[in-house]
Structure formats: C-alpha cells, structure tokens
C-alpha cells in the first residue's frame, strides 16, 4: 500500500472465543506492583 503500512497481524478478535485459560501471569506482579497494564502481557499458551 502507498498511504498505509500495517505494523502487525493482530489476533485479538480470534481470542474472544478461544482465550481465557488463565494460565498467564497476573500483570501487576510482573514488574512494578503499581501498574495494571495488560497490553504488554505475554500469553502463556503462545509462550509454550
């Protein structure tokens, strides 16, 4: 494309049905204990 470059291949919509296993880390525990950002968390299934 000339005017638009897409950065990623997102999977958010596909996780509506298949996500939710809950094996991932609690976000607040991961680094700071004061931040609840989830956008930067890692999916445990994909990490396996």
């Amino acid at each position, binding site marked *: 494309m000339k005017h638009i470059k897409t950065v990623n291949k997102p999977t958010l919509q596909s996780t509506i049905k298949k996500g939710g296993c809950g*094996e991932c880390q609690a976000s607040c525990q991961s680094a700071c204990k004061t931040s609840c950002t989830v*956008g930067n968390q890692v999916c445990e299934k994909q990490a396996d």
Partner: protein
Amino acid sequence: MLASIHKFRQNGWNLLLDINSGAVHVIDDMTYDIMDTFDGTNDDAVVAALAGRYDRAALREALAELHELIGEKTLFAPDIGVPPTFAGEGIVKSLCLMVAHDCNLRCGYCFAGTGDFGGRRGLMTKETGEAAVDFLLAHSGPRRHFEIDFFGGEPLVNFPVVQHVTRYVRQRERETGKSFKLTLTTNGLTLDETTQRFLDDNNISLVLSLDGRKEVHDRMRPDAGGRGTYDRVLPNFQRVVAARQGQNYYLRGTYTKYNPDFTNDVLAMHDAGFDVLSMEPVVAKDTPYALEEADLPRIYEEYDRLTAAYLERHRAGRGFFFFHFNMDLSNGPCVAKRLAGCGAGHEYFAVAADGGLYPCHQFVGREKYRLGSVFEGVTNRELPRYFRESHVLNKPRCRDCWARFFCSGGCHANAELFHGDIREPYEVGCAIQKKRLECALTVQAALAMEKEG
C-alpha cells in the same frame, strides 16, 4: 457503537489504532486527515471535505486502501463483548505475601506507610506462609501456573520465612505437579551474597527498587535514620544482576513531582549497568510530591523525550527494555485477560502478615476490603464478584475509551483512594497511561518499520 479507532501523532509518526482488532497502521498525513471524516461508508463526503487540500485521485487511492483494511477486518472491526470464557467466578492464581509489615527504609511515598500499612508492625510466621501456599493450591482448580511474590514492607527483614516458604513451595510443586513462579521485591539494603545465593539457587525473580539518579533516590528513599541509601543499594543490585547474567529481574523506580525529568533517571539506571527497567508515576494525594492534573503537559513532554531516547539507544545497538514499552502487537493477551486486568480481588490476592486476605497489596489495611484469611478462606463472597465484574466494559468511563483493551481499566486501589469507588478510575493515572500507550505503540511501530526497511 463504541469508539473503534484512535489516531495520534507521536515522535514524528502518524498512527492509527483499530481498537477492536488491535491492528496498528502507520498512515501518511492525508490519510490522517481522511480519518477525521471517514466512517467506512462515506467516500464522497471525504473527498468533498478534503478536495481543496489534496488531489482527488490521491484521496480515492487512500480510500481504496482503507476499504482493503475493512475487508481484512483491521479497520472498524466489530465491537467486543464479554467473552464466554470470562464468565463465572475467578480462580485465584497469584498471591502477594506481605511477609513483613516492617521496613528498614522510610520512603517518602510508601503506600504501606513505611511498611506497617497503618497498623502494627509485624512479621509473617512460617505457619501462615505455609497456609497461604495451601490456600492457593486448594482453590486452584485446573490451573497449573501460579505466582507468589514476597513483598512487604521489606521482605528481607523476614528472610527466614522467605526461605521456609520457598522450600515449602518447591516441595508442594513436586507433590502436586503444579508450577510456581516466585518473585521478591526488595529495596536491596540487606541484599548480601548469602541472600543472593539463595535467591539464585531457587530461581526467584527480583524486582529491585531504585529511583534513578543518586540525588533523586536519596531524597525519597532514606533509611530509618534519614540517610540516603543509593550508595549502599546500588553495588548490591549490580552484583546480583551480574550474577544472574542480566536475567530474571526488573529494576524499578518511582517518579514524583520532584523529578519531572525522569528520562534522566531511566537513562541513569541504564548507564549504571541495568537494561530491564520500569519507572512508575507516584500515586499520592495532598502531598508536595504528588502528581496533579496541572503536571500533565510536563509529564507528556517527558514521555516524548523518553521515547526518543529509547529509540536512539536501540538504533545505536545498546537498547534496553522499558516495561511500559514492551508490547507484542501481534500476539498479545486474549480478550478475557484484557478484561481480567490485574486480577485483584478475584485472581490475585494479597496476604497480610496475620494471614488476612485482601484484593491486592495496596488494599491491605483498608479493613472494609478484607476478604477472609488463608485459614478460613474467602468469607466475603460479594467482593470478589464485584471486582471481577468491574472490568472496562462495565465501567462507564472506560467503555468508550480507546485504551480499554490495553490498560485493564486502571488500578482499583487508586480509584478507591481518589474516589472511594473502584469503578471510578483515577483521572491523572488514566491520562498518563494513555500517553504511555501511545509511546509504546509508536516504539513498536518504529522498530517494526525500521527492521523491515
């Protein structure tokens, strides 16, 4: 229909986020202007609005590209509701053990009130620590992965119990086949070589507290006698991180109104030999160092500086990790996780030294939020449900916010602190979060584009 796109300019980049798909597009100036009008169906109106500024053929060309994105479901993707996988009660998977309601530092901004959480100073016993592990396992259902963070106060004040609970966890892992990730958050004052060896041998992740430059750190993080601690903790942190080959740790700082130039603190941490970093805004009110709405323009400017510095060091081949800029745009967390957020009160509990259960470490001491104890279990059944249902799609201020699938709706403890209600997000926190997310998206887009050439 809820807001479905967010466009912004950051560090010279024009970005378009499609909220419901998570797609991130880098767009030119003309497309940026098109998105003020374009709704997926009104090409002629767009051309009429912009024909005075842009060539008509070029406008039609960009519109054709936008329609291609709509076809690929990466623009104006459908709204997301609560997924069936998020229905039902949460299963606890994560505990914060307040092994010491006591601390050898007197940090000016401590939400634990210098470690005692507004109550009596006290240490967790071995028995309570074991009961916490057993509580977690007993309520874990099919879950396989768990986390326990040793926290305080300062957990190394009660190191024998940290050691005991660690050994107990490893024993219970063998017995149950389940897996625990252990972390310990420390100020580093007593992080000697013996302690270090134990933490290394037991694969305990570390969150190390340092506020950046010496003068910034010493101002807010004095010891009980009022003396600065930078010169004592820094060598400990450097030794510990070197011994674990730079793995399995975060160096974490807090910025306040006293250091609005906190990029210098992040870079000072990097220059001191650390490359896995986090720097957080202080949460406080009615104090001279608290961040307020009037401070936001200066804070935004500083995140612009931090973004530029972060990219500059990456391009120079000496990049570092910054917690809030880490983001996998293609394989991020699922929708259920984005709604669960930090999990406080339904997947994540804090255990006070006496065994009391609270929604998270910041709620310890706020007695109306006491959920039960590790001995009797959760006796307040309403609160966990209320916390689980307090997600972005149920909070009026979050439902239509572009950041709703990244921020988890803000920190409940901060919302409660400022508004007395976990469903009323803390505005300054939201504003900073959104700016940080724009920077994170920019960083990820810039690095991906530059890698591609």
